[in-house]
């Protein structure tokens, strides 16, 4: 703020905060943790300027709980954390999933497990982002590869969350979170902003979990305090929102929730294919690793290797169609990750034995280098 030009040098965490505000986010509750803290600090400063509110809660569980509460009043809400805090938030993420409360949870990944290396980058929470809470549940996980993309992708995170009444996990790595790049700030009018569907019926006709009143998957959602007087619970519930343990109703609820992952898939899948048309070897990469991948692919081409890149920004739902299609035409897919090999498992699954899948791992608290990927590409 304060800078009048629309091209700005921003830190990844700053872009995350400002992009969220641009998306309409007006409530943030958080608890400090490296390397995500700048998001909270920035929002403590800018939210009240736009009439929004910031609160630092007593812990991460309270933070996610507060944003779910705030979201129920109609406010777009967000929290941000890193590994240890993300682990603590898992129970309430499940609540948001079953009660279908839109909210965005940012996790700026650092080296784990436990306290690990708080200041160093990692990509070791990508499986946790999908499977961290108990029970079957839907969740969308996005992961930007640059500061500019952080700004626009966090807007998409809110759009998806509102559109599908689903918690969206926004995974960044410490490198993206802390580095500064140029961001061309879109004009507010330019941004596509999605807001949750609200009921158009009279309060007495409102069935808060009747998906048929919406698009068949997502029921319209009333704001607390507007006379709809409805009930929300983390128990399995029927269309009225009240608890049920009747088999068909439980089944219908869990399956409808799960179906969001499928139904939303196309709309929420952001994958850039770079030089993949004629590639005979592909790199599958995300986050900062995709940047190393891009350089490696360029360098590989320069030295005569026809490499291509799947730059994956939607980690979940996993873009298996992309992978399967590529798998059937390349000799190998190289999957560099700053972990012991997590999403490579999905790549293996999706490729169904059609190609060789090569896992490149790095867990020494430094990002994977273009050279590491390049040598793998040359070796295949």
């Amino acid at each position: 703020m304060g800078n009048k030009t629309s091209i700005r040098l921003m830190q990844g965490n700053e872009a995350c905060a400002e992009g969220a505000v641009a998306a309409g986010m007006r409530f943030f509750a958080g608890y400090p943790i490296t390397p995500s803290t700048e998001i909270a600090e920035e929002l403590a400063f800018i939210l009240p300027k736009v009439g929004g509110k910031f609160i630092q809660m007593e812990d991460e569980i309270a933070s996610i709980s507060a944003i779910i509460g705030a979201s129920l009043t109609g406010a777009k809400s967000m929290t941000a954390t890193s590994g240890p805090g993300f682990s603590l938030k898992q129970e309430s993420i499940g609540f948001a999933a079953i009660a279908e409360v839109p909210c965005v949870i940012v996790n700026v990944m650092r080296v784990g497990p436990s306290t690990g290396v708080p200041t160093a980058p990692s990509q070791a929470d990508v499986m946790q982002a999908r499977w961290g809470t108990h029970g079957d549940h839907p969740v969308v996980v996005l992961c930007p590869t640059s500061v500019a993309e952080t700004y626009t992708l966090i807007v998409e995170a809110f759009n998806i969350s509102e559109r599908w009444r689903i918690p969206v996990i926004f995974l960044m790595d410490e490198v993206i979170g802390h580095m500064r790049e140029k961001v061309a700030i879109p004009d507010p009018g330019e941004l596509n902003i999605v807001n949750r569907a609200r009921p158009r019926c009279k309060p007495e006709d409102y069935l808060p979990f009747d998906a048929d009143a919406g698009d068949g998957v997502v029921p319209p959602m009333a704001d607390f305090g507007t006379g709809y007087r409805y009930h929300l619970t983390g128990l399995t519930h029927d269309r009225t929102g009240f608890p049920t343990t009747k088999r068909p109703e439980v089944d219908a609820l869990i399956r409808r929730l799960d179906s969001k992952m499928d139904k939303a898939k196309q709309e929420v899948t952001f994958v850039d294919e770079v030089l993949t048309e004629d590639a005979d070897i592909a790199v599958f990469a995300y986050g900062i690793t995709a940047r190393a991948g891009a350089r490696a692919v360029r360098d590989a081409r320069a030295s005569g290797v026809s490499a291509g890149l799947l730059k994956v920004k939607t980690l979940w739902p996993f873009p298996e169609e992309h992978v399967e299609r590529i798998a059937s035409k390349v000799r190998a897919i190289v999957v560099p990750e700053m972990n012991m090999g997590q999403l490579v498992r999905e790549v293996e699954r999706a490729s169904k034995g059609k190609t060789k899948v090569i896992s490149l791992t790095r867990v020494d608290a430094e990002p994977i280098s273009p050279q590491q990927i390049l040598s793998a590409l040359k070796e295949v």
Partner: protein
Amino acid sequence: MQKSGNAGPVVDGDSRPVIINDRWCKGCDICVSFCPKNVLERPEGGKAQVARVEDCTRCGICEIMCPDLAIQVVPAGDRKEERSGARGGSVHGK
């Protein structure tokens, strides 16, 4: 979803001072035991019943003590006056 209306009590203030919702009563005996006028009764294994209407002072104790929200004591006459009177009555009178 069912929403309660904004209407007041639907019952006639004079005829039945105490109304017990049979469907909600779980038969805990609290109203029977707390009624200072011994108005109420409960058959073994059954629901509470108004046995001696005529003794009821509409003191309201049974209503506020019923854990199942199953009792409604209907104020007689001018409801406002009656209410404050009832409120003033001690629940520890027993």
